[in-house]
């Protein structure tokens, strides 16, 4: 009598495999701050945990959920708002691939930083990114499409904590709302690309956990935004020190 083989999980092909350290095939114009880092999700973040859901009903657009997701994956970088750049991996948005990006280090500030994301899940109707150490957020961000009545609804849902106290402070000072606007603009751009002239993006934001995880203060050591800010703040003092230092050598 043959032993019954356990059924293979239906989601097997959609998930990436665990990796110790990230590596990417994407190329960007900025510094690669992702290679060699680990992924870091909401469990590893410092700040309060937020669940943010942005959705847009594609009224009048003749596109089903699977076609929309294929379109979104194929042209992902073109829907990002101006000021941020997404560098897709060579083989596209697939489980296990790592993309690079140049974004505003603090939403609304002129400081830009290079970071990336790993595609941890992708199927015909959704795909999910996970952030690396050094990103301003420790997050999972899921892009999905579903049918609701006679329209397709596109959605971005983020489960996030800020990665470190520096970014958490900026979030408390307004960067949280600016981050929301980024995803609203992204969905508006996506909707216009399929012919929706006046997209109406709905947003819902819930603080899932008001506690901050102080044991992850140490994430500051990865924070490109924090290190760049410290560099900018101390630049005048370093310049003055160089100016007042005695010249090398002397008259003979």
């Amino acid at each position, binding site marked *: 009598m043959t032993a019954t083989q*356990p*059924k*293979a*999980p*239906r*989601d*097997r092909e*959609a*998930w*990436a*495999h*665990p*990796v110790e350290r990230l590596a990417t095939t994407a190329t960007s114009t900025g510094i690669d701050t992702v290679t060699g880092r*680990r*992924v*870091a*999700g*909401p*469990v*590893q973040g410092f700040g309060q*945990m937020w*669940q943010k859901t942005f959705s847009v009903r594609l009224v009048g657009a003749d596109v089903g959920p699977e076609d929309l997701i294929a379109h979104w994956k194929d042209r992902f970088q073109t829907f990002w708002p101006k000021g941020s750049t997404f560098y897709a991996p060579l083989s596209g948005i697939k489980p296990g691939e790592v993309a690079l990006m140049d974004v505003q280090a603090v939403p609304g500030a002129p400081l830009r930083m290079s970071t990336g994301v790993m595609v*941890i*899940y992708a*199927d015909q109707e*959704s795909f*999910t990114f*996970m952030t690396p150490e050094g990103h301003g957020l420790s997050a*999972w961000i*899921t892009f999905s499409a579903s049918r609701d009545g006679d329209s397709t609804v596109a959605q971005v*849902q983020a*489960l996030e904590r800020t990665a470190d106290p520096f970014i958490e402070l900026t979030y408390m000072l307004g960067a949280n709302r600016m981050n929301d606007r980024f995803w609203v603009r992204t969905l508006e751009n996506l909707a216009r690309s399929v012919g929706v002239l006046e997209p109406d993006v709905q947003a819902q934001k819930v603080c*899932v*956990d008001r*506690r901050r995880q102080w044991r992850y203060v140490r994430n500051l050591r990865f924070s490109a935004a924090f290190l760049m800010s410290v560099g900018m703040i101390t630049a005048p003092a370093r310049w003055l020190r160089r100016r007042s230092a005695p010249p090398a050598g002397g008259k003979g």
Partner: protein
Amino acid sequence: MMTEGTRVDVRTTEAADASLLRIEGEITSASEKPLMDAYALASERGAKAIILDFGGLDYMNSGGIGLLVTLLVRVQRGGQRLLAVGLNEHYRQILSLTRLDEAIAIHDTTEAALAAAG
């Protein structure tokens, strides 16, 4: 507690301050009600440890992983512990990939989980 695709059975173990939540079917974002209702019932019964038994799981997408984090937050807020058993290699890898295994203790058997929870 069930919804189309997800069933969660709550069993209070012989160690009365632990509850075993056996998950059958799938975990997606649509599984929130059955999972949270099962957790609420376990908490009402005084469980200090919640052991998720994934032995009957045959599908989980990234929405399901997000749901586990939401459950984790509630468990931690309740001063309880969250443990897991019944994970096959595929789902162990997913918990490793998402680094959820740093917050949810994974054990090979229910007995081992109960011993750890005690």
